[in-house]
């Protein structure tokens, strides 16, 4: 890898390495999250970038091998507490297949609603950080405040504000409270109005567009080749959403669309989650209307269920992209191996690739537009 070949014509020097400055962005840096990015810059240009995650590695997969299928639930949601329903979803689906449990129809709808509410919670948090990374403090405060709407709904539904522990093999822990539908519809309708207001100040803001458009462009081929997922992939023009392509639970009966943008730059990557939130609102309203009004929401489990001698791979679409769970079972109450294939970890590979040759000022926007959540990637 010759560095001089990466530089613009005027900057190609013989001893280019003497001009390189190494910046440690993180883990105590305000623009990094819980990770370190070792950035080498030449003037204002990034010539090399080496992401160094692992500062919040907690060994969730190892812990899962020592706990049974039920007690794993509060642990496995820890990597993304803002998206805890979605990260539990593939595990729960896999456990249901391994343990041979049927899920009641109403529980499937409740699950979908909880998952979509959670996706909004996560995306709003992500958007808030994206705003502050671009120096837009209003975009930090508005989503943080509007997130309260969904946290409030989830708290009514599950009893906890962030770590819900709501999904369980066989359905969900508890039924909806009495007037949940009305409250949910009212707040979601308000949120749809509210989210449209983001466009004036953020998404249609000419300064933001000129700042993020055409930066960190990930072409369609590269997005596929690097195996990126979620909003990064859809911003690069690949129409792939697990909810559409491999519908789990009741997503095949719901009315929604996937949002695909062509340009593949930071702007598109930041806009796709915003559009997804609107679709989430649609899904919630659709699911509330199509849901069976009564019925059980949980199949009762045996006290200490054992899986077969097999393995499953289930995946769902989380806030950060496809989230797969590979569970290997060896006829024990505990899973033999649980592997979470998370979207953040898959998108991480695009980071050194995109940041090389960018300006230093684009580093936060490109980094965060990858929808990367350090805690989830480390697991």
């Amino acid at each position, binding site marked *: 890898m010759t560095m001089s070949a990466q530089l613009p014509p005027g900057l190609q020097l013989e001893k280019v390495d003497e001009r390189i400055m190494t*910046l440690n962005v993180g883990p105590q840096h305000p*623009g990094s999250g819980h990770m370190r990015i070792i950035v080498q810059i030449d003037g204002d240009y990034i010539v090399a970038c080496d992401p160094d995650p692992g500062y919040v590695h907690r060994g969730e997969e190892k812990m899962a091998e020592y706990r049974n299928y039920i007690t794993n639930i509060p642990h496995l949601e820890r990597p993304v507490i803002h998206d805890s329903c979605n990260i539990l979803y593939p595990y729960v689906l896999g456990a249901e297949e391994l343990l041979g449990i049927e899920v009641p129809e109403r529980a499937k709808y409740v699950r979908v609603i909880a998952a979509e509410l959670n996706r909004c919670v996560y995306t709003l948090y992500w958007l808030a950080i994206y705003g502050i*990374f671009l*120096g*837009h403090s209003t975009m*930090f405060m*508005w989503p943080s405040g509007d997130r309260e709407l969904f946290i409030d709904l989830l708290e009514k539904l599950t009893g906890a504000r962030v770590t819900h522990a709501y999904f369980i093999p066989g359905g969900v822990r508890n039924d909806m409270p009495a007037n949940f539908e009305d409250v949910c519809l009212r707040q979601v309708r308000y949120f749809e109005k509210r989210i449209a207001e983001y466009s004036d100040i953020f998404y249609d803001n000419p300064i933001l567009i000129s*700042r993020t458009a055409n930066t960190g462009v990930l072409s369609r081929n590269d997005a596929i080749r690097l195996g990126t997922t979620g909003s990064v992939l859809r911003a690069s023009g690949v129409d792939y959403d697990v909810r559409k392509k491999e519908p789990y639970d009741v997503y095949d009966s719901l009315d929604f669309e996937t949002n695909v943008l062509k340009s593949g730059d930071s702007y598109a990557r930041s806009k796709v989650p915003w559009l997804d939130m609107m679709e989430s609102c649609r899904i919630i309203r659709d699911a509330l209307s199509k849901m069976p009004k009564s019925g059980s929401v949980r199949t009762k489990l045996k006290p200490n269920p054992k899986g077969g001698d097999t393995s499953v791979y289930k995946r769902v679409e989380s806030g950060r992209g496809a989230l797969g769970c590979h569970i290997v079972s060896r006829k024990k109450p505990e899973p033999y191996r649980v592997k979470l294939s998370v979207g953040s970890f898959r998108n991480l590979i695009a980071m050194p690739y995109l940041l090389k040759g960018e300006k230093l*000022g684009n580093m936060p926007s490109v980094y965060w537009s990858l929808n990367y959540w350090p805690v989830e990637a480390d697991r």
Partner: protein
Amino acid sequence: MEFELLACGGRQIMSVIAPTFRLSYFLKSILDNVFWIIVLVTLVGIPAIQIVLFYIEMPVINGELLTPFLALTWLADPSRAIPIVKAFMYTDFFRIAVFPGFGLAALVAAGTIFVERKMLAKLQLRVGPFYCGKVEGILQLAGDGLKLISKEIIIPAKADKPIFWIAPVAFVGTAAAFVSLIPVAPGWVVADVELGVLAVFAVIGFFPIVTVLSAWSANSKFPFIGGIRALHQMISFEIPLILSLLGVVMLAGTMSLTGIAESQEFIPWIVFLPVGAIVFFICILAELERIPFDLPEAESEIVAGWLTEFSGMMYGLVQLGTYLKLYAFAALFTVMFLGGWSGPMLWPPFPEEIITDGIQLGPITATIPGLPLLDQAMLNGVLWFLLKTVAVIFFILLPRGVFPRIRIDMLLSLGWYKLIGLSFINIFIALALLYAGVLGPGGII
């Protein structure tokens, strides 16, 4: 071993956390303090009193030379203190430290910080400072200042210490020098320079130097990048800043800030030179390092830019300098484009009897003759000036809630291509107005 520990009084041994209390040490510390107080009073206090007594010319008030004795008697009788206050108000020290100079600017700066926090909070659907000071957090700034003062000042180990210490003070000093050039009301200006506009640019030219010096002396990567960015930004925006004012200078026919303010008694120049005003305003934002041009302090890229290594009150001083600078630039905009203090008379005229008889002050019945201390025109001018300045400050603060930060290459291309071009257009407009005989010295209006 224990005996040794006790014997040395817990002083030399690092592992002893609390030194053992001894009455002798306690008495010694008190005596130390008394000794130093006596030394300081002898070396500083008495010479100061002597200088005041024998070398400073005291003012002549009511036909009497003010002696310390007279001053003390006037302190006893409040009504007789008024002439001293009046005399004090006409000294240069008052102008520098209190009214058109530092005191007013610091007051406006403090107000700006408070308004910025509350307004930004409103815009972002928050509450903002709320609990400190009972009324909408009005004492929050004082609390923050107290916190900054009480914080430890940490100097990087390999910093160039003298320069690093001087930098914040020099920053505040430069900002105060800038403030001193601003005329607030007719006759009320600290330094009434003939070539006022040039003097302003000479002072502004110090800011990048101070910034780069502090960034360089910190000997750290992030301040270095921030300092270089600040240098780029300030230098490239000084050119359109100067060029955009040329139109006003040409039309007014003078470079004195007072003269420029007086030249727009009826119509402010912003009416004729809106392009120049817009360019000047954008340049102000860039020079002040405010969002969307806060690249030197971009916290998500380079931690806090050139402020990264400052701690405690050093950081507080830089912030004070920044807000003084903000006031000064807003005031400059007011003087150059909005007509300074000119405006219809809003201040109510003083009642006749107050001017002739003075004020009866409550139960003591101390009549204060010789009012008004400040005449009506001056108060009206200050009112208009502050109103306009506050309006400009509002527009300087507003983008912080609305825009994201821009990138350094966008910033430079904006400064070098667009704003310079626009300021030339502005100059041509001014020249056209001048040669058409509409405006300027000897013009129609």
